[in-house]
């Protein structure tokens, strides 16, 4: 399944065998993420160039230009290292789930959550001062705050629903409740 911004891939060892490991990946489309960083870098470059032309050596524009390029390149490099390339959910039935975040630089951050600690996976609408989006969260035993399954990426509801269903099946939430909720989620 793919959208303009993200691609969703579902890997399953076997469709029919119970207890098989289930892996869900959401990958950000490269052009979007790097395009955003380039835009930020360009803005940063223009600000530094303008400030240096105004405040510093007005007589030596070549030096200003080269310093601005260097600083902007450094800024883009720092931002790129933090850019997330892929987030994955690895569901291991009766054992737990592993949440992984892989950056462009190759660094991977993982978190394992034992199955006994998960009370319920929920689809939540998050409202910020400028936007509203769906997120998949886990309600964990002993923790007051929800744990986000996808910390950096914001995949669409169509991508989140199969992952949510898979989590519900594994956690063993009451099936009749799930079926009722499915029937009434339309759109």
């Amino acid at each position, binding site marked *: 399944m793919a959208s303009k911004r993200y691609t969703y891939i579902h890997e399953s060892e076997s469709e029919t065998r119970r207890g098989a490991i289930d892996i869900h990946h959401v990958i950000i489309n490269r052009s979007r993420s790097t395009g955003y960083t380039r835009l930020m870098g360009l803005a940063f470059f223009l600000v530094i160039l303008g400030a240096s032309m105004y405040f510093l050596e007005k007589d030596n524009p070549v030096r200003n230009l080269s310093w601005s390029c260097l600083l902007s390149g450094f800024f883009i490099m720092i931002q790129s290292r933090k850019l997330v390339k892929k987030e994955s959910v690895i569901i291991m039935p009766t054992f737990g789930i592993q949440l992984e975040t892989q950056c462009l630089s190759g660094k991977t951050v993982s978190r394992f959550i034992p199955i006994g600690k998960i009370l319920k996976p929920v689809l939540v609408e998050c409202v*910020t001062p400028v936007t509203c989006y769906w997120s998949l969260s886990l309600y964990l035993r002993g923790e007051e705050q929800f744990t986000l399954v996808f910390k950096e990426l914001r995949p669409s509801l169509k991508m989140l629903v199969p992952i949510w269903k898979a989590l519900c099946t594994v956690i063993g939430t009451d099936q009749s409740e799930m079926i009722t909720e499915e029937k009434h989620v339309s759109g």
Partner: protein
Amino acid sequence: MAEPKLRVLMVSDFFFPNFGGVENHIYYLSQCLLKLGHKVVVMTHAYGNRTGVRYMTGGLKVYYVPWRPFAMQNTFPTVYGTLPIVRTILIRERITVVHGHQAFSTLCHEALMHARTMGYRVVFTDHSLYGFADVGSIHMNKVLQFSLADIDQAICVSHTSKENTVLRSGLPPAKVFMIPNAVDTAMFRPADVRPSADVVITIVVISRLVYRKGADLLVEVIPEVCRLYPNVRFVVGGDGPKHVRLEEMREKHSLQDRVEMLGAVPHSRVRSVLVTGHIFLNSSLTEAFCIAILEAASCGLLTVSTRVGGVPEVLPDDMVVLAEPDPDDMVRAIEKAISILPSINPEEMHNRMKKLYSWQDVAKRTEIVYDRALKCSNRNLLERLSRFLSCGAWAGKVFCMVMIIDYLLWRLLQLLQPDDDIEEAPDINFLH
């Protein structure tokens, strides 16, 4: 699931958990519109930790947008700051009509402006009366002129309020509908056993103890009535800055056993206080409508009220005794009410109120206004700008600039985040 007929976004700074007339109006109207098969979404600002999406009875979806209130429950006015979130909500909920409430709500005015810029149909309801002469009112009326210059239809809660809104905003009267508020007669019923009026007559007052609600009049009226009628006692519910004056009045005239002060009364307990009384006293200095006297009449109490604003339009003449906002005239009105009290039948009064006022009727009439709004033609930016120019020599030009910038910002947002990128939210039906 059948597709809803209309998809309405109610916008106001005033909604639950804050409690008041506007909040109640939005809630009851929304519930009745949901029962008529429409989809209703409410947008308001965050209240403390209450932010995000909540669902209320009947599947009423409420967006508590995390913009903090800054003065008197109003969101800080940024003019363009709310454009992204308003656009997101309008697209994801597939809204067809935007309905703003209350002239004093900055979020309402901003949302109406953005909705008009994006080509949505817009309706506005004014719930209060405002002045013309003081500095605050002059500025407020200018903002209202700007906000209402371009709307499709407006609603007022009384004929007096319609006159007031038309004069303040310069709207053509043909665009303004009059739909009164209503009362939940199932909740406000008379007591099964009415307290006897032979020995003691109880006069109930429930209001905020502020200047605007005539608390100073009460300070003059209560001692005089207690002097003339030894068998009358008062029950005063509500709190506010004038509470101290009432306490002083009680001390000065030694009325501790004749005047009971209840303090703030939660709305869920208002009925239980009303049914202990025989007469309801309203001393407001200004009221567009006054739902309080509706609630009292629904509980079978005879009402004594000041003749201000829209109050004379609310109840039939045999259910209310009106007086000028003057202590002597109010005492005379209370005397008249005490004399006609034996002829009052609370059950008959309640049954009449059931026929006169209902939220279902308000919702049906509001539906007609929405249909009218949807039939209005969509104007392009240039035609809309010409309406703003008539608002004033300088103000008109400022308003035009504000709208042009809003339009440009909207187009920029469409470039950065096209409409297709905003995912539509599914309609979730709740099991009953």
